[in-house]
């Protein structure tokens, strides 16, 4: 069966967060990037479904030209081909991302589309479900486990708050959003890395004209660093000083 996984390239979690002068954007150029964590989980589920059904796995990413890196990375780990929906400049709002992804996947007739629950950066947690609506697919969110089930559907386990779990039957074609950490993404083999270079990647520009009928609906007016808690004590500096202050604090609080 044909499966698509939507993956996003984000700033690496260990990279510094540098806010631009207008306080609207986080600087990403020249800083390390990575595949968003929940998307890694979705990709591994996609790879396992591909193997179980002897299917085809397509990866799609919307991003700047450099986002081809996460596509190549996915191909090296076993995906078959990629589509880069290339968009330069400010990040698009979630609806516009979903619309562009729906265009990109519109002719593919995938039986199953997977996305992460939310991205590491914007964390809007909505692109996947919007994509399901735009493609007319059934959907289930917050999936931690899924496999091919009866009646040409998927059996999916959701994890909700408080550790509550549910098993759902989701008829295909469908879209699942997958939780970070649910699946550990396999490593690429040397053979996989070599083979990835020969796998096809189509680049499709995402033009602003695509959104002329879709005016913007939300805008970020400022990005700020969260304030520390009022009255909190801050300890930093040389290790020896930090440790002696910590020992005092812990000794006092432990018995309090």
């Amino acid at each position, binding site marked *: 069966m044909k499966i698509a996984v939507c993956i996003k390239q984000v700033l690496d979690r260990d990279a510094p967060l540098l806010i631009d002068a207008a306080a609207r954007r986080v600087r990403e150029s020249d800083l390390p990037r990575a595949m968003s964590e929940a998307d890694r989980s979705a990709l591994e589920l996609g790879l396992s479904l591909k193997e179980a059904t002897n299917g085809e796995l397509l990866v799609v990413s919307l991003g700047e030209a450099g986002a081809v890196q996460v596509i190549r990375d996915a191909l090296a780990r076993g995906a078959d081909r990629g589509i880069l929906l290339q968009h330069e400049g400010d990040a698009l709002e979630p609806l516009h991302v979903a619309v562009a992804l729906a265009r990109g996947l519109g002719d593919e007739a995938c039986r199953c589309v997977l996305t992460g629950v939310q991205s590491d950066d914007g964390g809007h947690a909505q692109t996947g479900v*919007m994509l*399901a609506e735009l493609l007319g697919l059934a959907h*289930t*969110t917050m999936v931690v486990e899924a496999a091919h089930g009866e009646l040409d559907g998927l059996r999916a386990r959701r994890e909700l708050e408080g550790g509550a779990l549910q098993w759902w039957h989701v*008829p295909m074609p469908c879209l699942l959003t997958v939780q970070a950490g649910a699946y550990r993404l396999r490593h690429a083999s040397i053979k996989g890395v070599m083979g990835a270079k020969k796998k096809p990647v189509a680049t499709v520009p995402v033009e602003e004209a695509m959104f002329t009928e879709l005016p913007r*609906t939300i805008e970020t007016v400022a990005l700020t660093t969260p304030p520390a808690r009022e009255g909190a004590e801050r300890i930093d500096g040389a290790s020896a000083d930090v440790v002696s202050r910590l020992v005092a604090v812990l000794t006092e609080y432990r018995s309090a």
Partner: protein
Amino acid sequence: MSATTLLIAEWRGSELHPVTRDAAALARRLGGERVVAVVLGPAPAAVTAALAPLVSEIRLVDGPGLSLGSGEAACHACDELIRRLRPDWVVIPGTGYDLAPRVAARWRRSVIANCAAVETGVDGPTFIRSVYQGRLLARVRPVGEPPHLVTVEPGAGGAADGEGLAGQAVIEQLHLASLPAETATSLEEPVTPHARSSSLRDAGVVVAVGRGIRSQEGVELAGRLAQLLGAELAGSRPVCDEGWLPADRQIGSSGVTVAPHLYLALGVSGAIQHTMGMHQSRRIVAINRDPNAPIFRIADIAVIADLGEILPELIRSLEQAGPA
């Protein structure tokens, strides 16, 4: 101009879900005297009673599919209610991530998702939400025509119950015959949460490790520290996903909730999913090398340091100081 706000109430079992209170508070802060709460499906009377002081009107909605807990029926019902009531705002508790985006896509809008707070000003409201896993805050505004869709993070709150309201809500029944009775997705079995470690739940001191602990060896060092402090060892989700700690040691929204008198967080970034399980701790001491780590927003003592450097020294110092 008087605004109308639609609030989709979330309920589980026989109770109003606590996040609905947060969502109702945010809805009232949006300035509308008219906050219409929608209860989808056959909710028990206790839910309506809990909701009545929080809003100005309640619609008890029934129709095919809603009693099955079907997402499709809920989505159709919201769609229909937006059509009928023409609200300026649609406020949805941020629990399932299911409903709001599906409704929003139908109305060709993005959701202002997981809001922690709202600030009201002359230009209208600005919503505050966490981005970059809580390391930054974004101020977001709606643009263009209503309805504007907002989901609310658990614990957002921000207004006292009933503040700004005339009195008890007016309650109406509403039958939506047009809802789809057939549902595509179906619930096969709910699974009760596995028993979580009770020694952890009742602990007086908790040492919690996060991604910043970096390795199994790091977790073992933290275990030694826990022993010296007479503490229970626990972890955030990534640490349990890695298998460095068993799943029943996970603290947060999908794990155990604790409220010890001392919570020592080692390399825990402090994502909302984690802090929901520990924010009521009496004292929070957090060690992280990232000064932007969101855990510092709730910590009493913020230690900006590299764990690799200070953890062995800290253990040595406590060992010299003698047993607890």
